[in-house]
């Protein structure tokens, strides 16, 4: 397999960043196959829980992407994302996981090139950091049920 292939989880908001990823594709911009995008409606939907779950399972990096400040389709969702990422970074610091493994970026629907560039940059950044301290555990945990999948409490 040669060079270290990081395992990077990317959260992308539906309106700007996911569209930016589409544009990168339509423009055939090449970037490393190290990222796995999870679409959410708004970067404000991302919780510390999601990010920590990724690290718990050995993700080498987590990238949260959303609309530029002021562009949020939901007015202020991306401000929540800022708080979430900051809080999570503090927890990573305590856990001794390099905060460089977590990043927040604003990518607009017109920024295909930027999307590709950030995927490449972040991959390089993670390569420089090397494998996550938690990287070796939790392989082969195919399809465990999601945290919080409780019986829909009928109320």
């Amino acid at each position: 397999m040669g060079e270290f292939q990081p395992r990077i989880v990317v959260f992308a908001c539906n309106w700007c960043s996911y569209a930016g990823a589409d544009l990168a594709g339509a423009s055939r911009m090449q970037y490393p196959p190290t990222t796995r995008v999870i679409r959410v409606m708004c970067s404000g939907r991302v919780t510390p829980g999601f990010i920590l779950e990724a690290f718990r399972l050995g993700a080498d990096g987590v990238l949260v992407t959303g609309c530029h400040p002021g562009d949020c389709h939901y007015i202020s969702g991306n401000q929540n994302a800022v708080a979430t990422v900051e809080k999570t970074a503090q927890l990573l610091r305590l856990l001794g996981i390099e905060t460089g493994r977590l990043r927040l970026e604003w990518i607009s629907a017109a920024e295909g090139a930027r999307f590709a560039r950030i995927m490449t940059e972040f991959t390089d950044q993670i390569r420089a950091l090397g494998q996550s301290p938690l990287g070796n555990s939790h392989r082969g945990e195919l399809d465990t049920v999601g945290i919080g999948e409780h019986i829909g409490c009928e109320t």
Partner: protein
Amino acid sequence: MRDVLVVGGGIAGIQASLDLAEMGIQVHLVERLPSIGGRMAQLDKTFPTNDCSTCILSPKMNDCARHPNITLHTYAEVTALAGSAGDFTATVHEHPRYVDEAKCTGCGECAQKCPTKVPDAFDMGLRQRKAIYLYFPQAIPQVMTIDPDHCIYLQRGKCGVCIKTCQAEAIDFEQTAREVTLRVGAVVVSVGFDFFDPRGLTQFGYERCPNVITALEYERLISASGPTGGHLLRPSDGQPARQIGFIQCVGSRDVRYQAFCSSVCCMHSSKQAVLACEHDPEATSYVFYADFRASGKGFREYVARAEREYGVHYVRSRVARVTEDEANNPVIHYEDADTSRPARRAVDLAVLATSLIPRPDTARLAQVLGIEVDSNGFVKTEPLTPVDTTRPGVFAAGCCRGPSDIPESVVQASAAAARAASWLVD
């Protein structure tokens, strides 16, 4: 209830169509180009929020494409409008794309293979497209179009690489123009504007100096999806432009060209100056103006920020001429307002805020639609009936009725929709 015909698929046409469609009215949206989106699609950011233009426009374009009450007629033109308010019969001429809209997925595989390169109009000729092309990445419909003037097959009957490439079998060189007849109750005209060609004003050095460009070319240059990937590079040597001069009223407020004020240039130049600084903190901008017109919502605050936070210099003086020094730097000549003496400033890049003028075919279209144009050639309206044209049942919105910024165009579009709808009550 009768349908409504909307002519012109820019932001005004899109808004009018969506409003009418949401009122439960069937809309036929006719666009001259292969995709809707209009001028706004070419912009990078929009003032005074610096919103990404594509981000806010393309969801609306998608809404148009998938709205059950909207029928898109792209790459088409209106050639006749008979009848009267409440009961018109319109003839729409649909140009052949030589691509089957139903089959094409817009994947662009054909364009990858097509051998013919053509200057890309969407990018102001700043880069090349192929003879088979998608008008721009977010185009709606997501369908390729073959440019008959440059397609080797259509010109010389050979090539056909696209036919071999397309697994959807969407290429159809047998396609011919279609005439569509529509019965509609009202018409909304929103064919937009054109930019004044500065070549006539030789003193500004456009074409003579490679580093003198127009505002729209600047938009494409600074656009992340543009030819330079959003890097502000001088055409002459591809070096980053750090000193930028914005020259206002190029063709506007000038009895020899356009007597009127183009309304939006003071702000779009301010925005472009701010963007230059956002892309490169080193950048310094100079905006040369006569009266600074910024009376829209949040505009003065925006300009204040441009001055305070982005170090944009506003120079109260209309530029007399632009020369070029040995390093291809445009040299801007103007009168220093304080000393009333001639002054000059060399910059890396000079940007001409050219007038917003009626599209060349507006007069012809006006004839077809049976409406009058005003002394400037814009679709004629009156102050108290702002979106009514001279023909009952035909309404106008956006820059075809005079220079307007985006929100004004959107408001006019909704207003035209309201007026049009009131002709449909049966």
